């Protein structure tokens, strides 16, 4: 299986579905995912939460997961408000902040995190090599 796509409602209740899609692509029915897949799972989870809570899409999110030549690429597309990840500062842990870590965490966990936007359309792309 090299590619999976799905439409999921833009609610936090859909996050478990994202995890199941990744699990299916990883070919792991039960038990813990391999470490790199766990990192992708957390990165995608954080990006999806950011989309759901801040972009507030009006229609389903589209997720596409591709595994080619040891590289996982996940596209998450929404129709919500545009977002500029460059404006998100890295939180200072010494200040014990309660928010602002999601995109920072996602960025650290994948090899590339790309954001594209045009009116009524936004897409996050997460790219990670499994055997790097």
């Amino acid at each position, binding site marked *: 299986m090299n590619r999976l796509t799905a439409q999921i409602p833009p609610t936090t209740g859909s*996050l478990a579905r994202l995890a199941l899609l990744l699990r299916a692509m990883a070919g792991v029915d039960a038990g813990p995912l391999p470490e790199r897949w766990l990192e992708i799972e957390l990165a995608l989870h954080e990006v999806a939460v950011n989309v759901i809570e801040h972009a507030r899409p009006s229609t389903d999110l589209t997720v596409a997961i591709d595994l080619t030549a040891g590289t996982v690429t996940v596209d998450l597309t929404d129709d919500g408000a545009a977002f500029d990840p460059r404006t998100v500062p890295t939180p200072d*842990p010494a200040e014990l902040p309660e928010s602002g870590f999601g995109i920072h*965490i996602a960025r650290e966990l994948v090899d590339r995190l790309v954001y594209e936007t045009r009116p009524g359309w936004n897409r996050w792309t997460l790219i990670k090599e499994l055997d790097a």
Partner: protein
Amino acid sequence: MITLTHTDPTTAQMRLHGRVDVTNGLELRAHVDTLLAGQVREVRLDLSGVDFLDSAGLAAIIRLVMGTRRLGGDVVLTGTDHPPVERMLDLTGFRAILTTAVGGVSRVGGA
């Protein structure tokens, strides 16, 4: 997700297990706010049973740390030495800020 035990009015032990994330973060936050409103200032927080932790779950823990420190106490984290928890503490830099305990020895910024 949460097991809570009071040992005296200002001290509590809390154990989190399973997924601790945005889907149940409000529940955890409500427990945190109840503890702090009751002037609990010393908390031992066992994370050994957590198998997924996201930034929202961590935020509730940070809220507890900030609140107890404001009251002159602290939160001691235990069971942090497994990937779902280690990963979040390292990625966010909180490992250097929070108090962790291994083998009964507590230290700020400890492993």
